[in-house]
């Protein structure tokens, strides 16, 4: 399932003194199987852009096609679209509301299922069984113990657990594309790493396409295969991490932060030790250095 954005512009509060052009002629293709990163300074329009992907916002100009369908068209099935494009907002744990974790996670599935109300009336037992199966699947998928947690109040969980429950509440709809707005914001390093590991699991086994907004360049560089840089409502470029972080001029011009490993390797280059590839995290950096040392025979 792909997302194609063409000439998309969006204005908040049009025709008022508060009018704010948040997106300006965006063109973008997100292909099946991408782990797509979106970076940009605060207020650059990242969140506004992704909310177009499941028609929470309608374009002021241009269009968005998800799987060939334009959600802004009349008669588009928004519920279907929203179950296909799962959206995890920033700080999703603030949207928990139900009495139990089970009910909160089930919310999305039940809403989705409501469409076939007749079917539901005909066979309520099957609906119940199916709900349970899907909730179990989603909770297990985010790495929590279903039996232990299902009857707890979501408000009694730790921050990291809450976030997992919130993510489970989205993937319970079995989305084909998962969009996450700063999924690791506000978590400690371990929580961050766990969420990222979870995303890789999800991508491998569950929803093949992931779109992630993040301010953390280490995360973006080591996880995404494509990165879009957005600045003041415009797409500056879409590149692979290698291309993006090798482009010193662009990095300087747009004030893009670089991952720590990249910074280290650029310092090495200044000292005359250059590599044909950049590492994006500590393991990769260590790997490259190790190889080089072995090549030079300084390490047996």
């Amino acid at each position, binding site marked *: 399932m792909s997302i194609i954005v063409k000439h998309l512009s969006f204005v908040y509060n049009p025709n008022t003194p508060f009018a704010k052009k948040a997106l300006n002629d965006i063109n973008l293709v997100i292909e099946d199987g991408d782990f797509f990163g979106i970076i940009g300074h605060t207020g650059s329009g990242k969140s506004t852009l992704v909310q177009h992907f499941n028609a929470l916002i309608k374009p002021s100009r241009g269009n968005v096609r998800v799987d060939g369908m334009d959600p802004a068209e009349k008669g588009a099935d928004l*519920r279907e679209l929203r179950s296909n494009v799962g959206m995890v907002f920033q700080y999703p744990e603030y949207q928990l509301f139900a009495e139990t974790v089970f009910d909160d996670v089930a919310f999305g599935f039940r809403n989705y299922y409501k469409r076939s109300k007749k079917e539901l009336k005909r066979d309520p037992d099957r609906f119940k069984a199916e709900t349970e199966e899907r909730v179990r699947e989603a909770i297990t998928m985010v790495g929590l113990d279903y039996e232990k947690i299902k009857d707890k109040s979501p408000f009694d969980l730790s921050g990291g657990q809450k976030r997992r429950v919130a993510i489970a509440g989205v993937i319970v709809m079995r989305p084909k594309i998962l969009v996450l707005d700063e999924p690791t914001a506000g978590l400690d390093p371990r929580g961050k790493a766990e969420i990222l590991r979870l995303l890789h699991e999800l991508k491998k086994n569950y929803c093949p396409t992931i779109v992630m907004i993040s301010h953390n360049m280490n995360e973006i560089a080591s996880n995404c295969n494509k990165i879009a840089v957005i600045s003041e409502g415009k797409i500056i470029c879409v590149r692979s991490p290698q291309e993006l972080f090798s482009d010193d001029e662009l990095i300087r011009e747009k004030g893009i932060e670089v991952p720590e490993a990249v910074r280290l390797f650029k310092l090495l280059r200044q000292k005359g030790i250059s590599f044909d590839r950049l590492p994006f995290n500590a393991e990769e950096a260590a790997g490259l250095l190790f190889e080089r040392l072995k090549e030079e025979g300084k390490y047996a």
Partner: protein
Amino acid sequence: MLRDVAFGQYYPVDSYVHRLDPRVKLILVVLFIAAIFLSSSWAALGACALLLLFGVAFSRVAVSKVLKSIKPILFLIIFSAVLNLLFYREGTPVLSFWIIQITDRAIRFTVLMAVRLSMLIMGSSLLTLTTTPVALTDGIESLLKPLKAVRFPVHELALIMSIALRFIPTLMEETDRIINAQKARGADFESGNIVARAKALLPILIPLLISAFRRANELSDAMDSRCYTGSKGRTKMKKLKVTYRDHIALFVSLNIMAFIIIDKVMALFPAI
């Protein structure tokens, strides 16, 4: 978007009226409302309208914006106009059919009331359009100061008001976000009967309430850790000051209002 109906309708331009002292504006609005209800002749109403016109002209607020402020109470105006027209019985009938009788005085009274109500709303929205909520609470606090003599907690009241005002946009934003997040999970707020719709609001209201409490806690912690103790010995960053602008505005308005009062007195005692 929810934000559109937000009541924080401050119109951000710089103008003569925007720069007036909020206390002066508050007093003028109160006087204006009193003047409107004192006016019973067309000349007096005309004077009120002139005052309003001055206000709008010197505020640089779009006229459409001021007119739109009537919209929420348009129904009320029309409803009361219909009642006035039908049930005001004095005067000579000009139109009568079936059981309905409309008199000349009824028409006059109906128009008078409708004009009064519209001007009242426009006048008071001009205040909120040209004064930031913060300035407004500052003004109210300052005007209520005499009540301190009877131990009325003026400062605390003002603080509550400004905190409430400060958090309205934040909560609006939060509501927007939560609505979107639940919509993304397939929530449907539009279909079903009243019960179903009310129930559909729970996934919005509960997170909103929780976050409001969270914010309240955070805010009180922040105030405590900055040693906030209330009004005693507090100074203000922006001191309210009455300037020549306020003098001019007061002078013009009071003259017009004097005219209205004289007009009223003359109507009551035609002998003078």
